[in-house]
């Protein structure tokens, strides 16, 4: 008689407890994976060719996408500030808001998300396919450490490329705002650049670069980790790919907020 209502009371807590334990276990697994990747990656043998290949994949081949995103976002931002600002004749804030908005937030976050969409998914699919087709087993029997050979070059390349890409994206984003302001909104080019120069701060760039490195870390980590743990054929690889992208997005947005809150809070 009493068992049923008691169960009703306990069940939700049991469910919460289970998912909490599951979450903790997952965090533990990711932490272990990260530790192994970094410690093995820092000890020989090194794979410089793999690293260079990953720089090309992550950085170089993502540049067109990143550049386009940045130029459109910079221009759209300029237009929005101009329209909103004209209600209280504050159009002159356009260059300042563009530079601050792009450098502090939009540059790093948009680059992070674009590259996560491109790269986390590709890494998870590639490594996941290697898992389900036993290529990872073959690698082990051929005495090559997957952490050194596959994971570390990806992780280190992403941590290094993302800041460089954010630098480029910031420059292109500011250029997009300038282009629209001068060509369409009738700003004076020299004035616009003057204001821009005054509002560009080295501190903001530093924060953007730190954010970018953190995003790069999460992008590669999620791609590699979920690929490594893939199982169950093509469907398993599909799952791994989806989970990698979604979790990279969450980690990017979450860590972006934390860093912003820490610096300005």
């Amino acid at each position, binding site marked *: 008689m009493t068992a049923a209502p008691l169960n009703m009371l306990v069940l939700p807590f049991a469910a919460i407890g289970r998912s909490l334990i599951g979450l903790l276990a997952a965090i533990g697994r990711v932490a272990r994976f990260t530790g192994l990747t970094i410690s093995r990656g820092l000890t020989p043998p090194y794979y410089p*060719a*793999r690293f260079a290949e990953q720089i090309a994949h992550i950085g170089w081949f993502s540049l067109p996408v990143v550049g386009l995103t940045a130029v459109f976002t910079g221009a759209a931002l300029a237009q929005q500030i101009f329209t909103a600002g004209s209600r209280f004749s504050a159009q002159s804030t356009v260059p300042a808001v563009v530079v601050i908005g792009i450098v502090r937030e939009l540059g790093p976050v948009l680059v992070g998300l674009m590259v996560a969409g491109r790269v986390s998914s590709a890494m998870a699919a590639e490594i996941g*396919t290697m898992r389900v087709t*036993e*290529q990872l*087993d073959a690698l*082990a029997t*051929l*005495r*090559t450490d997957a952490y050194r050979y596959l994971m570390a070059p990806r992780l280190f390349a992403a941590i290094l490329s993302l800041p460089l890409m954010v630098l480029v994206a910031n420059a292109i984003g500011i250029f997009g705002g300038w282009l629209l302001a001068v060509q369409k909104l009738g700003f004076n080019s020299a004035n616009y650049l003057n204001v821009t120069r005054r509002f560009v701060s080295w501190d903001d760039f530093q924060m953007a670069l730190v954010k970018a490195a953190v995003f790069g870390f999460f992008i590669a980590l999620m791609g590699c980790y979920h690929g490594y743990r893939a199982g169950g054929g093509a469907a398993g690889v599909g799952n791994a790919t989806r989970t990698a992208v979604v979790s990279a997005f969450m980690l990017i947005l979450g860590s972006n907020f934390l860093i912003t809150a820490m610096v300005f809070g």
Partner: protein
Amino acid sequence: MAEAKIVLDGLSKSFAGRAVLDGVNLTVEKGESLAIIGQSGSGKSVTLKCILGLLQPDSGSILLDGEEIVGAKGARLERIRAKFGMLFQGSALFDSMPIWRNVTFALTHGQRIDGARMRKIAEENLERVGLPARILDLRPSELSGGMQKRVALARAIAPRPEIIFFDEPTTGLDPIRADVINDLIVSLVDDLGITALTITHDMASARKIAHRVAMLYEGKIIWRGPRDRLYDSGNPYVDQFVQGRAEGPIQ
């Protein structure tokens, strides 16, 4: 009396509570060629993966040259694995690199070294499995399944290991190619003195390449004997299996 190269003793492995291996006892002697037969899903590939340390057995022991290797890690595991070559059932070629890099992977460990010499080694090993040098620069995905299998075979033999595991070396090959592979395995064992453990569903191949045959059934080795006894083993399970009959003790 020949010395034992690999000794499996009470090897057990379950997946999600289902026992796949349930006390496998098997000895492979040095320089011997042993074939394992058994139904699909009976745990043949799992047995090889336990020996290679790719799967951890739940219990039991594996002796390699008299040394216990279950649970080996780090440098010791590397040293153990250096003795083995493995042909995976699904080939497991690295599809991101050309054939010649695949074949020489055990020598380069993925480093971009010694290009010219490695190409030469790749060419020689491909020749042994009957493949032409023109495929050196192709990718695995550009080859047929049977060709991939032979490239994987070339990759397994390239470092001339002491022991080679062949997981279904002739599956997916035409009868002529299959016989080329049979001859290759025989010559590896007879001429180079390697120890070979071959999983096969191909009875003609088993009779040609193996000195002895063992049958895995319901997680145990239920029969082992010399190859000429394969067709008169006196064991109803082996009889049914080698004759491919649907009726019998195996359901």
